[in-house]
């Protein structure tokens, strides 16, 4: 398949990455179009988080190319990636627990230099998640799992990203909160025409939100399906 990097948002080609000399993902090819929500599912250790960290350039890659629009991210660092409008929310401890909600949101906006823009974004985020606005001065570690997850997404939104990358956003929160959180993510992506790349083990939740899904097994992409195709499947387990 020829990929038009001018039109496409994120394009990952022939990516190999891992820890030390041991590769964990092999020859991965994925893309995320502007405004599209793409999910990556797979079992524990399939290489999902490694894929996100590699794209975010917070870990070294062995081979391959990563492009975002016209930008080549392959040899860049995380601060550069953030500055180009890509956010990354890790699976575990996605907030600064010892700091207040406002301090967390300030750090979320770290790459923004204009103070006026920060206040504008703070206002937007607290409108989307009113609980954050009501409890700005509270220590974030006191929040429930769901509220912490909302805060982590709020932090990502502080940069008004063109691409949000979320690593297991359903981790540690109840199914009803997962549903609500995913709905917020979907609405935001569609409203702002921004892309989302989500890594999940929760396949059911993923099919509710993603336009397209990749299945990663033992570090390789073994399947790419649209949401409709995924929903028509009787059983997902044989893919893992």
């Amino acid at each position, binding site marked *: 398949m020829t990929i038009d990097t001018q039109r496409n948002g994120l394009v990952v080609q022939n990516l190999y990455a891992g820890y030390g000399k041991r590769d964990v993902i092999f020859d991965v090819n994925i893309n995320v179009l502007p405004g599209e929500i793409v999910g990556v599912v797979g079992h524990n250790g399939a290489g999902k988080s490694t894929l996100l960290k590699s794209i*975010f350039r*917070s870990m070294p890659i062995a081979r391959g190319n990563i492009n975002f629009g016209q930008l080549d991210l392959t040899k860049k*660092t*995380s*601060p550069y*990636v*953030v*500055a180009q409008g890509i*956010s*990354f*929310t*890790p699976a*575990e*401890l*996605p*907030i*600064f*627990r*010892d*700091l207040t909600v406002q*301090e967390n949101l*300030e*750090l*979320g906006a*770290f*790459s923004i230099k204009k103070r006026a823009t920060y206040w504008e974004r703070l206002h937007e985020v607290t409108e989307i998640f009113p609980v954050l606005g009501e409890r700005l001065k509270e220590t974030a*570690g006191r929040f429930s799992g769901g509220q912490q997850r909302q805060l982590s997404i709020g*932090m990502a939104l502080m*940069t008004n990203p063109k691409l949000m990358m979320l690593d297991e956003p359903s981790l540690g929160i109840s199914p009803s909160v997962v549903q609500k959180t995913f709905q917020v993510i979907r609405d935001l992506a569609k409203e702002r025409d921004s892309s989302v790349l989500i890594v999940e083990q929760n396949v059911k939740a993923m099919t509710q939100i993603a336009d397209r899904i990749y299945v990663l097994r033992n570090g390789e992409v073994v399947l790419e399906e649209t949401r409709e195709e995924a929903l028509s499947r009787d059983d997902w387990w044989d893919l893992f």
Partner: protein
Amino acid sequence: MNFELLAQLTIAGIVLGSFYALLGVSFGLVYQTSKIFHLANAIPFAAGGYGAVWSAEVLHLPLFVALAFGLLMAVVFGLLILFLGYFPVMRRNGALLSLFLVSLGITVAFPNLLQIVFGTENIPLRTYNSEGELSSAFDNRVFSSGFLTITLIDVLKIIVSWVLIIAVVVFVKRTRSGRSITALRTNPTMATAVGIDRKRVYILVFALGSFLAGVAGLFVTAEFVASPVMALQWTIVGFIAVFFGGIGSLVGTAFGGLVLGLLSSLSSLYLPVNYSPIVVFASLFIILLIRPQGLFGKASV
């Protein structure tokens, strides 16, 4: 109870504790942010003292310029350790044990380097007077009030240490660069996720920590002498203050240092003076048993 002795020892304890607090914040800034057990913080300490002594004698710099030159050398040597010692190891594997071994090696080798360059003798801080002769740079006057006495250097130790500690704490809390230190200290993964450049933060904390270590080195040189082995014992006190006061907090570290100084000094009421190092280590041991997070630290993940 001898109240005159108690008052005098309390003052001595505040002086010592302020100095411990300065050393603790110097070591703590680097350790809490990078997790590197930066024993080589002894090098900027010594570089501060030797920088001042050398520039005053060889470059004929007046006292305050020589002190500034000493501080510059402290920061330069602190950053040289980071760039030539730690960064290459971080690029290879970044294991904390490897970084500690690098630090240990530098700490052992540096006094030998000082001996090769400056000789084995102790060197006092001297400047050239108006007659063109080298003379003692600093008149360490003694102030007395009733039964209490305190020297000029002791007064300066208290004032300078706390002014610098407060300045560092305010910097960390209130500025954008300071917030990047807090972010990296409390959650390195998230710090990267929000776009903080880890390398830049390391450079910042090593520069700040080395500057504070350099100030401590200047105090010791001005009060006593510069010597090849001047730094290690004080550096060890610095990291005791960090673990005693609380690993996760600069304010906790500073107050930990103060309490440690007071304990060390006041122990002389009941024990011979040469027992005070034992009191310091025993206090740390007790704190680690009953409050592993440190006296003012929070028990958190």
